[in-house]
């Protein structure tokens, strides 16, 4: 029987919520779901979402190592036959594992899938930071590997009445080429941006480091906390704990004022649930306008200067 193999991400004993997107796309595709999980934790899974749970006797860090994952997938294939889709999350671990599995088994790979068309059987994949999308499909038959974008398919992961079969397979000896040492927590922040009611967030559009103090001043005048998108943090214009996005913090302020941020999905994922999003950008095609409640199409420096003038009276 054809089935989809969903490789779960479990991090420090938590079954990551983005796994629901992996399960959701399988439901949308109309496939039976076999969920592959490491067996060393007591994390919570909503079992009614899947048909089979395959537990592998491995610790989570060993499970999430691509060198081990290919052996685990081989063990599943030996046991259950070829899945027609292998699904990973589009995350740090998911992309790492998916590409290695695709290379090892010589399988087609489509990453960052954010839509699926059932009639035409194609995957919808972002290009150019969401400015365009491609309708993709595999050219041949057989197993296809995909990674799915967080937040894209969660709604399709609805409960079924049946309870799943649980199977346990032996783990493989940990690979020697790569080994886990430890998790490292981010440095503690001087200000916790997740607690702010009003965030003024700046992005690449700020242009250069010398402009930052002026935005700090504006934030102070507005009683907002200054945060930033990835490019601003990478360039060390703002400290890492001020980063909004998947690799930084997820925030839900009352107001999120995004200045010079075009809206890569990694950023959107970190702020889309804010009560009110206001975006200022000179590019009317910037994806952030799709998520914002209010938009201003203008040069951010001019907006900044004008706001300061008005507030100063």
């Amino acid at each position, binding site marked *: 029987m054809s089935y989809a193999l969903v490789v779960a991400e479990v*991090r420090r004993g938590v079954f990551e919520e983005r796994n629901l997107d992996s399960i959701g796309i399988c439901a949308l595709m109309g496939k039976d779901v076999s969920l592959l999980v490491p067996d060393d934790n007591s994390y919570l899974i909503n079992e009614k979402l899947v048909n089979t749970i395959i537990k592998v006797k491995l610790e989570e*860090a060993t499970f999430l190592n691509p060198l081990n994952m290919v052996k685990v997938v081989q063990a599943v294939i030996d046991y259950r036959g070829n899945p027609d889709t292998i699904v990973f999350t*589009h995350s*740090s671990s998911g*992309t*790492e594992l*998916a*590409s*290695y*599995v695709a*290379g*090892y088994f010589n399988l*087609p*790979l489509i*990453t960052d899938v954010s839509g699926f068309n059932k009639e035409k059987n*194609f995957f919808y994949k*972002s*290009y*150019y*930071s969401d*400015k*365009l999308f*491609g*309708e*993709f499909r*595999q*050219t041949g038959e057989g197993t296809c590997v995909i990674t799915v974008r967080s937040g894209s398919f969660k709604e399709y992961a609805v409960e079924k009445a049946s309870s799943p079969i649980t199977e346990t397979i032996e783990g493989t000896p940990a690979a020697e080429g*790569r080994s*886990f*040492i*430890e*998790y*490292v*927590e*981010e440095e503690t922040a001087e200000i916790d941006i997740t607690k702010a009611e*009003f965030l003024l967030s700046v992005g690449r559009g700020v242009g250069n480091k010398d402009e930052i103090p002026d935005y700090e001043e504006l934030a102070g005048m*507005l009683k*907002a906390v200054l945060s930033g998108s*990835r490019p601003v*943090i*990478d*360039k060390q214009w703002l400290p890492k704990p001020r980063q909004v996005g*998947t*690799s*930084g*913090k997820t925030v839900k302020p*009352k*107001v999120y*004022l995004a200045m010079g941020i075009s809206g890569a999905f990694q950023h959107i994922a970190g702020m889309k649930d804010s009560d*009110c999003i206001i975006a200022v950008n000179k*590019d009317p*095609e910037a*994806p952030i306008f*799709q*998520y914002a409640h*209010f*938009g201003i199409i203008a040069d951010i420096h001019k*907006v900044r200067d*004008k*706001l300061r003038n008005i507030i100063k009276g």
Partner: protein
Amino acid sequence: MNILVFTKRVPATQEEELRIIDEGQGIDFSKVPFKVNDWDNYAVEEAVQIAEKTGGSATAISIGDAESDEVLRRAIAMGIKDGFLIETEQILHDPNARATLIFNFLKKEGIPYDAIFTGVQSEDDQFAAVGGILAAKLGLPYASMIIGIDSLEQGHMIVQRELEGGLQERIKIILPCVLSIQSGINEPRYVSIMGIRKASKVERKLFKAKAYDENLNSMIEVVKWVYPPKKGGATILSGELEGVCKDLLGILKEKGVY
């Protein structure tokens, strides 16, 4: 240490409007400028720093049309020793096709290396996959999202990987290996026009893709290009800047934050 680093020329679409042409079969790039893929700048910088620290050399490789020579010259201006261009006019959307071409090239040319670096992803197709596929084909250990190389020992490295929500993981990886380098790992050095001109005098080696992969077969295909679906979208505040800014302050007051 000898490091191979991949660098790609991509359209600079940040502030450009992209137009779909030929009924969804093509994209009009005639007015779009091109640049080095952002992530590759960090990978090149990291390779140069390691070569400077440990001895050995860093070599930049690009797959693309003749124009991609421009990203190799830039890499050489940053301190890369050699630049190899694997030339093809074909746009390889499939990361499998790219990785297979690289795999065949490395095998046939017998190029020595201790580590292979790629950027985490390219700005155009965002696959984040070539490094992983290549590593698996070569039978080498792989790690992605590298934001720090803590130590470089005989035969292995201790590296930091970025995970989600500010969490990182420290791992040990045996050489030779493939790493995908995340932005922010270093500060790519400034490259002057003079530097690029000087780099033009360093010979770049040209290889034809056809010599390594006759057909460049793809396992996936683009059926059609489409524009993103319009979600509700923002209410655009328009008019004179003064009025727009006053409207903005009004919204902040209404929301109770100002």
